[in-house]
């Protein structure tokens, strides 16, 4: 694997971790007796994510990493559908695809 590929793989891992952390945060709202546990788990995943992201930036520039992080919007939608039973319609997927494309354009260096 080239250094850039390692960096992008790490950033995608961060996107997946963001998705997991968000599921934990939403679980904290749904499971009141164990609210603190879910919030703690979410924060713990966020801390590990920050460390992995810092490591990723050793391999790729922020301008490369940023658009890849927007994959978290798609990962959150998939996990919300799978683990929370939320309805993710075609319209919502269209919105997510536009946002991911928009964030990619915002990161393009002139």
């Amino acid at each position, binding site marked *: 694997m080239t250094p850039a590929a390692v960096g992008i793989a790490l950033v995608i891992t961060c996107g997946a971790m963001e998705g997991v952390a968000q599921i934990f*945060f939403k679980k904290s709202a749904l499971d009141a007796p164990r609210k603190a546990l879910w919030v703690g788990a979410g924060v713990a995943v966020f801390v590990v994510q920050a460390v992995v992201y810092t490591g990723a930036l050793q391999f790729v520039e922020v301008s490369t990493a940023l658009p890849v992080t927007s994959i978290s919007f798609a990962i959150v939608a998939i996990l*919300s559908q799978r683990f929370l039973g939320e*309805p993710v319609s075609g319209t*919502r997927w269209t919105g997510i695809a536009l*946002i991911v494309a*928009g964030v990619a354009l915002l990161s393009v260096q002139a």
Partner: protein
Amino acid sequence: MSRKVPVSLIVRLVLAVVLDTAVQVQWKLAAARLPGSLSVSALVEAAHEPLLLVVAVLFAWQLFNWLQVLESSDLSFSQPITSLSFVSVLAVSVIWLGETLDAAKIGGIALVFAGVWFISRTEHDSRAPAQ
């Protein structure tokens, strides 16, 4: 399920975007003032950097507000809306930090707005948060 978004949820989502923008801009400013080396003394010095303390407080407020958002809305509805912070961070960078705006960035802003508009048109389980 409905397409109506309670005003209280809109306020919390706007606050989420504002706080995310503040965290990112403060982080950018704090990082520029940190020492380049990673020695213990440099890290101790960094911990005393006032801007980093501001970032820590903003992080905590952001988490508290976000948990309030999730108390009253679908995750897959609210989370993509926070992508507006990519636009607001760019706006702050252009207005106060001298960053330039080009055609690609204007296109990106338009796509993010369009995406958020599509999301806001979807059926969702969102209600006024409990006080």
